[in-house]
């Protein structure tokens, strides 16, 4: 689609959607959001870009093939699950690290659950873009 308005608007919208997708990813542990919905929102950013400027441009600015992103995401999610072995727990048991925790102060909680969610984000992001790019190119 050749539209200057759409192309100019997409510049800002894409960036905004990508940032928002990260926000959704990170707030997802205790509030609505998470890797799946974050990945969808992130993918929309690039889908919009592909509609405005063409799939070739979108692929170039993504730099990596989307199917590779999905597979790396699957790998990250797996590693998050396997990491439990290092602590002698069952597969996919969450491992937590509270940075700067003190008495009555939780600190910054980091966990393998978050790593798993990042993996999910990448799987969703990559597979949606694989499908959409392939379909756009068909048309």
């Amino acid at each position, binding site marked *: 689609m050749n539209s200057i308005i759409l192309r100019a608007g997409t510049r800002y919208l894409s960036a905004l959607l990508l940032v928002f997708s990260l926000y959704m990813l990170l707030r997802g542990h205790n509030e609505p959001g998470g890797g799946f919905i974050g990945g969808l929102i992130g993918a929309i950013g690039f889908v919009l870009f592909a509609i405005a400027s063409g799939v070739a441009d979108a692929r170039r600015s993504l730099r990596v093939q989307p*199917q*590779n992103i999905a*597979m*790396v995401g*699957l*790998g990250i999610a*797996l590693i998050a*699950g*396997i990491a439990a*072995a290092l602590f002698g*727990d*069952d*597969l*996919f*048991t*969450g491992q937590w690290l509270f940075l700067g925790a003190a008495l009555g102060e939780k600190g910054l909680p980091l966990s393998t659950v978050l790593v798993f969610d990042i993996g999910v984000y990448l799987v969703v992001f990559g597979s949606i873009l694989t499908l959409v790019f392939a379909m756009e190119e068909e048309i």
Partner: protein
Amino acid sequence: MSWILAAPLVLPFLTAVLSFLWRHSPAGRRISVAGNVALLVAAGALLAAVLDEGVVAGQMGGWAAPFGITLVADYLGAAMAMITAITALATALYAMGDIDEHKAGLGFHALFNVLIGGVTGAFLTGDLFNLYVWFEVMLISSFGLLVLGASRAQIDGGIKYVTLNLISTILFLSGVGLLYGMTGTLNMADLARVVPALEDQGLVTTVAMLFMIAFGVKAAVFPLFFWLPASYHTPAYAVSAVFAGLLTKVGVYALIRVFTMIFTEDTGYTHTILLWVAGLTMITGVLGAAAQNDMRKILSFHIVSQIGYMVLGLALYTPLAVAGAVFYVVHHIIVKANLFLIAGIAERAAGSSDLARIGGLYKSAPLLGALFLVPAFSLAGFPPLSGFWAKYVLVAAALDVQGWLVAGVALLVGALTIYSMTKIWAEAFWKAHPDGVEPKLTRIGTAQRRWLLAPVIGLAALTMLIGLFPQPFIGFAETAAQQLLDPSDYIRTVLGADALPMPADLAEEAS
């Protein structure tokens, strides 16, 4: 104990990720083979642990049963995981010669390993909803494999395959939802003790029928089988082989699992239906095969007819019959996968899989002829091959309960199977090639030929082994059947030693 259960699940997915990232180089194929060797080791370790302890269970994520996802391996589950690993390794080796760079570049090895992960997951899970998830994993990856390369016939077969299977998963999911509404649990061990205590057994039977239809589509039983012969002859031979060996057997496994452990209160109704289904599946499958003239189509219809035997074992519902079904599943996976692999070599040597257009294989490639005879006669039930013992046990079990008719049907279908196998033999191997070509194996490149033949020889050797020393395998199957018909060990291992008899408050709640 949980890692020994988790390893056969984690390894295929890890292999899938790595082989996908290296899909454009030969390293991808090698990773796939190495990953499947590792899977075989992991499945072997699991089988050893199960032989040692009876039932092994683990709670994923450390959530206690019945709330979390439980992985369980009893004799049946461990044996199925083992046979999956064997088939997967054979297919991965075969794929070294069968899958070209184009298909590898599209991600064949990743999809294949995800499929293997899904199949293993279905065999090892102890949770009905988790089983549904594994079914979905299998469906997505198998659809990808089916249409890989995107020829017209493949898309045509793929659409039929995915539509029918989606209907099946919807029914499965509805059944799962209803069952959860009635019992508040989806853990199989928990269901096994709660469902018999439910008051409204009529409703349980209704839900059981939903499961029967859902798994029946997956297993390709009469009258729900027609998606199978419509799609299995279209993809690459390595794909056909792994589908033929494993996918329908997951449906059979699920049928065996739920109709021996969970839905057992009204066997007069459910298992009578299964008995009719079994008989009709055997007959329609074998008659359908007789009408075909393409090697892969004949073999596809024979999957259907052989599924009938396995369902027959379940339907008769005696310890010997269920043992026969378990033995039959294991025997059939090896034999059927091997026949498809051989058909692939035959097509490469002779130029087609259409029986009218090939011939002369016995004269030019006697090794392939010998290799074909082993699984073909095993399928038909010739002694001393594995199929003979499988049929023998089932027919004996049928005669034990005065099932003269089904025993007769089983024997008749065996005879008709010989007809189809001799047809392939006469057309592809015996008669001269219609174009005067000499279909020598050397027409296939040396390295490629080795990759193609090695798994075929290995699987044929395994068939001979089971045939010549059936006792330990039948003994194993009998223990597996015992565990299925009396799941108290299974329940205690999953839910804890005091799970049985069911606590009074739970029993009261259920009624």
